[in-house]
């Protein structure tokens, strides 16, 4: 069975500072990995996903994530955050052919001026 652990429930950071949101997963087979963002009062939307190939994945809004198979991690990074990045971020893992994803508990990123 697959599972996802987001290591930080809340991450406060100042504007223009770098940020890393951490995600570890557990699975017995090859997986696909996703990061979604949820802005206040909205549904989730895809930031980026890792399917195969290069372990460094670039997404929207300047975010990127690195897949590390040996450490079973998929941490999300941004070199310089903006106030508008304040949101909740979810890491998700999907395996097999079921089309289902398992989501982490979420990390609330708060960017302060």
């Amino acid at each position: 069975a697959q599972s996802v652990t987001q290591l930080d429930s809340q991450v406060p950071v100042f504007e223009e500072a770098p940020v890393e949101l951490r995600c570890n997963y557990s699975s017995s087979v090859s997986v696909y990995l996703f990061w979604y963002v949820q802005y206040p009062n909205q549904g989730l939307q895809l930031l980026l996903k890792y399917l195969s190939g290069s372990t460094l994945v670039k997404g929207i809004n300047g975010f990127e994530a690195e897949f590390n198979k040996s450490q079973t991690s998929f941490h999300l990074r941004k070199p310089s955050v903006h106030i508008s990045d304040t949101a909740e971020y979810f890491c998700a893992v999907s395996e097999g052919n079921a089309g289902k994803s398992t989501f982490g508990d979420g990390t609330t990123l708060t960017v302060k001026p």
Partner: protein
Amino acid sequence: DVKVTQSSRYLVKRTGEKVFLECVQDMDHENMFWYRQDPGLGLRLIYFSYDVKMKEKGDIPEGYSVSREKKERFSLILESASTNQTSMYLCASTPSGISADTQYFGPGTRLTVL
């Protein structure tokens, strides 16, 4: 753009009422999902459907049922609402059953059961 819509953004119901949450997607997606989202618990899968009239239980199906009579519409039913079903409900769809698919989410329905 894929569009997933949910019938209500906010809903207030009383204990014991039958509640219907509707979800419609306009991109001919095969799969549809219902999640509930609670603070600190992330998204938990209630039910999903791979095709019309087909349904599968997710991780927390108790107290819920679903209906998929048409490909574009997936309904979540609370037969007898209880206060512990107060939550944010999110609907999602994917093009097929491939695990690499992105999930496309609706805006959510915040349900309060009094």
